[in-house]
């Protein structure tokens, strides 16, 4: 059992170090790269590269400019329409999985444009398609307009039920054939409308139209008043997912067209970043030295735990992957401070017990026990803050995107990791290093 445990630990260590390796670092003939996976298991293709993803401010990305079509918009509503288009686009890009884009409105002469800066992502074309989608969803029913004609052809007319009435769209799967479909749930007004519409159309088709394109026209079997509907079409999972993103983020109030696309450099400048990294390393060394000088051998252990902490967090950043931007780095630095803090708390408690004349082994045990309450409470409050700022449930009234989220994510990862290294790893290290000396 013990050998198995040691083996597992070794395996995890190797994995973490492997993931953390620098990219394209050359030693003589060899170039070192972090772990990358590319294989197939049970028919599922696994492809993942563990690389650092840097945000716009640190690395740059793609710059897209969309021309808006303002002809149909009332001049007095123009400002509102533009800013709401901006917000919807920002939402879409974020739901697409791009973290911290910059979305701005541009005006030159009478041309209104929207510019979007995306940090280095691979699927730029897919992002463009999604951004440009107007996503006007509507439900249409058949009506016979001209009754004088001998065999009147039914025409599709709007029912008044649109994407505005949808609370949430999500992907689910048809239980009969396993095909992906889009499930809709309506808000109160939408549910009422949908109930009425289905009631008067029993036995007739009800058309679901997105951007003037008929997606499906199922025949109504019975009146549905619970406020749920599904769109079955010939979707792939990916298509269904993008449709839900487009519906969830709301319809664009004006149509847009891509007019410019180019790569841009980092807003913070390579030189600036280099300087800051250098300064960060110096700062870290100062922290380590301080710990070692003040706490002696325990400080050495804490420093070791801190390095392990850094390696694990960095590996997690690469696994998720987290797009690192300056606010994100700030969250990380703060969590380093808190990681050190856990150790200092424990050491002060151990010292306290030693002063009371306890034996070292017992002092360590008691010190950990006492410190754990404070560490737990302090870290849980910080996690609460991070949780609310991150807004995992996507509530409308909280920030749904952008740098606040980036900050919260790195802070949460940092604090969770520091709980682990500060408590579990430091304890193990103390046991290992002190047992030998009795």
């Amino acid at each position, binding site marked *: 059992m013990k050998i198995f445990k040691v083996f597992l630990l070794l395996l995890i260590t190797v994995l973490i170090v492997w993931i953390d390796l620098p990219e394209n670092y050359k030693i003589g003939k060899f170039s070192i790269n972090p772990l990358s996976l590319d294989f197939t298991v049970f028919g599922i293709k696994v492809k993942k590269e563990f690389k650092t993803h840097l945000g716009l401010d640190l690395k740059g990305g793609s710059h897209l400019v969309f021309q808006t079509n303002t002809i149909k918009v009332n001049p007095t509503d123009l400002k509102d329409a533009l800013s709401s288009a901006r917000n919807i686009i920002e939402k879409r890009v974020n739901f697409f999985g791009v973290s911290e884009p910059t979305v701005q409105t541009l005006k030159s002469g009478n041309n209104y444009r929207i510019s979007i800066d995306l940090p280095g992502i691979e699927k730029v074309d897919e992002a463009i398609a999604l951004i440009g989608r107007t996503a006007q969803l509507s439900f249409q029913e058949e009506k016979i307009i001209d009754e004088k004609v001998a065999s009147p052809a039914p025409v599709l007319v709007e029912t008044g039920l649109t994407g505005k009435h949808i609370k949430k769209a999500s992907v689910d799967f048809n239980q009969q054939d396993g095909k992906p479909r889009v499930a809709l749930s309506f808000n109160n007004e939408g549910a009422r409308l949908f109930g009425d519409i289905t009631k008067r159309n029993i036995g007739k088709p009800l058309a679901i139209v997105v951007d003037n394109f008929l997606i499906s026209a199922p025949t109504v079997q019975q009146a549905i008043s619970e406020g749920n509907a599904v769109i079955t079409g010939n979707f792939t999972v990916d298509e269904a997912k993008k449709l839900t993103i487009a519906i969830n983020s709301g319809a664009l109030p004006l149509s847009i067209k891509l007019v410019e696309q180019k790569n841009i450099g980092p807003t913070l400048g390579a030189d600036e970043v280099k300087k800051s990294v250098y300064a960060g390393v110096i700062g870290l060394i100062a922290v380590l030295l301080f710990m070692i000088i003040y706490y002696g051998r325990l400080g050495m252990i804490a420093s070791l735990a801190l390095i392990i902490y850094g390696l694990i967090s960095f590996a997690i950043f690469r696994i998720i992957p987290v797009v690192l931007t*300056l606010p994100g780095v700030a969250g990380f630095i703060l969590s380093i401070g808190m990681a050190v803090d856990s150790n200092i708390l424990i050491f002060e408690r151990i010292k306290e017990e030693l002063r009371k004349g306890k034996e070292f082994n017992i002092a360590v045990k008691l010190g950990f026990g006492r410190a754990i309450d404070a560490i737990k409470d*302090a870290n849980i409050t910080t996690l609460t803050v991070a949780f609310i700022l991150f807004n995992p449930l996507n509530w409308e009234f909280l920030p749904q995107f952008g740098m606040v989220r980036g900050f919260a994510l790195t802070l949460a990862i940092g604090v969770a990791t520091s709980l682990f290294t500060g408590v579990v790893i430091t304890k193990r290290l103390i046991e290992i290093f002190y047992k030998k000396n009795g």
Partner: protein
Amino acid sequence: MVNFLKYRLIYFLISLLVIGAGLFSVFKWSYCYSIDFVGGSNLEYRFDKIVAEKSINKILQNNKIQSVYLEIKNQNLSLRTKPLEQVQENNLKNSLEKNLKVKITVLKSETVGPTLGRETMIKTGVASILAILGILIYMSFAFKGFNYAMAAILAIVHDLLVVIGCYSLLSHFYQAEVDTMFVTAVLTTMSFSVHDTIVIFDKIREYFQTEGKEDIEYFANKALTETMVRSLNNSMTIVFMLLSLTLLGGTSIRFFIITLLVGTITGTYSSPFIATPILVWLEKRKKQKVN
């Protein structure tokens, strides 16, 4: 044991002075807002020969135009500035042409909207308030007392006021701008502040458990004496990190780091000197009511 609480009036006075100066500055001078909030202008010029970046910077300075982003590629200049009036833009173009003896073709001239809209800021504010409420609820449970939570939150408010006020001073005297990074720094301060307070409160809670009912003031002083070294050491490590970033790091993040530094210092200060006296006061008042 040191009787820290004896000097509580001095602590409050210091805080009052710092916050007062800050708030005075907020109301008198307000802030400079960055391009993130107010938008700006995008210019792209083509010169008929290659021009050095330095000479362009000098002309920008002479025209009192603040550039946020400047890039020269061959004969093309991309410039992003604070919002420019048509007149300012013409003046810039003329003085570039005159001083550098070049001809300029305007490739692009557009106005950029803000990236941080009102909506985002309001939502961030709502989230912060909710986060504070979250802390209030959790601490009320963990410490089995509303007073602990209340004291911790008053300390957070204190720290936020200090940071916001000091930034206005920095903004007035050193042209620090309110931007996305400032918002992050404020959020960081909020998280750090409560972390530090909890460590002290944990000690007080422990005394109540192990030594029975006794005077809260005595316990508070004892807890402060024992945690002071830890608090200082912990803040020291963060201060080392931030000082090194302030002195050696890049200029564009300097104000961000200084704000974090201010946040760390006030966060460390407020836990023993603001939160604890308030807790003692609240607990004593409760006791008096009972009696």
